[in-house]
């Protein structure tokens, strides 16, 4: 075999091995989830009689419809608002180039790199005083704030790449900064906003610490927070727990797989046009 063939073969082998290792925990969950309830499965073994009904039981035990509704409400509360605020601020920073830009970026950087642990304790008391503990607002409002550094820096990076001549042309036409933003810059930023929306959706859906600290009722939590509760309830029943974990993570995985295709198509189109 030629050296090129050998290196191709090594590459494919390594890649397949890494992919298999990545899938292993999920396969192991699936194998456990398909065993008869009450039995103690061993490692990864395909059961003689796969119990697909376990997923229905887990769906009911976890109250999936309520959980889906709750997480969706939280996402709807967080993502559009965070996108709008990030776009506005990114426009201010990237296109209008405000005075004190460096200071603003520095302040945002502190929030971006400091862990949630630095904010969670006072957040609890703050939201208690606002009377918002145990409501979805207790997750929604802090999350919008916590996403600001990332969202603003992301949108600023986009608006820096938009030629300033576009704003200048709008000004010549008599449009103020607001109309230029609303009618020219916002529509142009759609793809960038879409990818930001995807990330914020994920991070909201998977938010755990905020959910378990600020909301006791799993029916008002994010999906990850609800999974934490489910684990507490069914921790000893490995079959039902595995089925529940798979059911609870299914929506994000589905959305990811769907949008991944969108993403790739968009990239390919961009490459062809470029």
């Amino acid at each position: 075999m030629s050296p090129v063939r050998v290196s191709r073969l090594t590459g494919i082998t390594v890649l397949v091995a890494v992919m298999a290792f990545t899938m292993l925990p999920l396969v192991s969950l699936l194998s456990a989830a398909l065993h008869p309830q009450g039995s103690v499965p061993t490692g990864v073994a395909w059961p003689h009689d796969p119990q697909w009904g376990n997923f229905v039981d887990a769906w009911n035990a976890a109250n999936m419809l309520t959980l889906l509704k709750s997480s969706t409400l939280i996402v709807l509360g967080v993502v559009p608002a965070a996108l709008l605020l990030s776009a506005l601020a990114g426009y201010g920073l990237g296109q209008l180039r405000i005075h004190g830009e460096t200071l603003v970026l520095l302040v945002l950087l502190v929030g971006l790199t400091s862990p949630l642990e630095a904010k969670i304790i006072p957040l609890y008391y703050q939201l208690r005083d606002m009377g918002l503990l145990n409501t979805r607002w207790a997750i929604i409002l802090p999350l919008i704030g916590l996403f600001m550094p990332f969202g603003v820096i992301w949108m600023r990076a986009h608006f820096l790449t938009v030629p300033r001549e576009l704003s200048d042309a709008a000004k010549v036409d008599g449009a103020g900064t607001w109309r230029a933003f609303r009618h020219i810059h916002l529509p142009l930023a759609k793809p960038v906003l879409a990818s930001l929306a995807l990330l914020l959706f994920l991070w909201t859906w998977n938010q755990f610490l905020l959910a378990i600290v600020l909301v006791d009722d799993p029916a008002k939590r994010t999906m990850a927070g609800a999974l934490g509760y489910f684990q507490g309830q069914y921790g000893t029943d490995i079959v039902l727990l595995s089925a529940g974990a798979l059911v609870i993570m299914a929506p994000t995985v589905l959305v990811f797989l769907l949008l991944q295709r969108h993403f790739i198509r968009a990239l390919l189109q961009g490459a062809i046009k470029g």
Partner: protein
Amino acid sequence: MSSALDRRHPDRAAASPDGNPAVDQGLVPPWRLRRHAAARRASTGRSRWSGWLYMMPALLVYGVFVLVPMGRTVQYSFYDWDGVGPATSVGFDNYRRVFTDPELISTIVHAFELLGFFTVIPIVVGLVVSSLVREVATGRFGTVARTTLFLPQIVPLVAAAIAWSWMYSSQGLVNQTLSLVGLDGLTRPWLSDFTWALPAVGLIGSWVMTGLCTVLFLSGMAKIDRSLYEAARVDGAGPIREFFAITLPGLRQEIGVCVMITIIAALASFDVIYASTQGGPGRATLVPGVAIFRLAFTEHQVGLASALAIVLTLLVLACVLPIQRLVAEKNP
């Protein structure tokens, strides 16, 4: 996904002092831009102030839900407070306890041990894998591979912890595999073993982070000029020299981004540990994140929890900010 990831961190956005990507990419010499900008500054003085109006809503929410809480954490850290009654000021007592209480020191030590699993393993494995598969990770196979490797980033960390806890349990896949190859003597319930619990939860972190780093490195390698590799091959360079002379310098930014993301994930880890071991057995896997949660919300030692949170934050910033500056510097 790769282009999305590139914007994940501010270092790219703030790569040049002007923050202008045209300069970073070498499209416009900086001096020309400066003259240009000075002329524009004079003409658009008004809009430079009106920009603040657009910043206001974001800064307001950020201030109320991030800056104010951070300030209050500092304030609480100087109090002795149970969260209900009156608080008494105790100066630096809480900090003194963080640095003298062996239990609290051990949480910080554990956090740094996790760095090996969350940061070192994913970056080393990611570099090796991505250079080995660079040629084959294309087309449809490449897409499937990237999607698969990204999956650990998509599932909630709690789910990852549940899946791995099951794999580590006495009946789980790890012990099953060991028995299969005749190493029955090594089998154990890994997460309740005082010696092995920490490496075991650390490996969960490696699983979560390795795919992310690999995909990032692959997208970075795609941007390296192919002719560099061809030139190296003409010069007779082997794959090892090729890696150190071309790939590694070309991936500086991607490596920097991975180091930052994974350091924050390791030092401030909470979800994985809370859902797999809760810090046990004993305190073998107790990390600052879980300790802060317990102290503040079940043991009512708000002041001490806040002091630990501040120490953790300073440690994270001390590790991340130098790397941030290193990455932000222009490539030579």
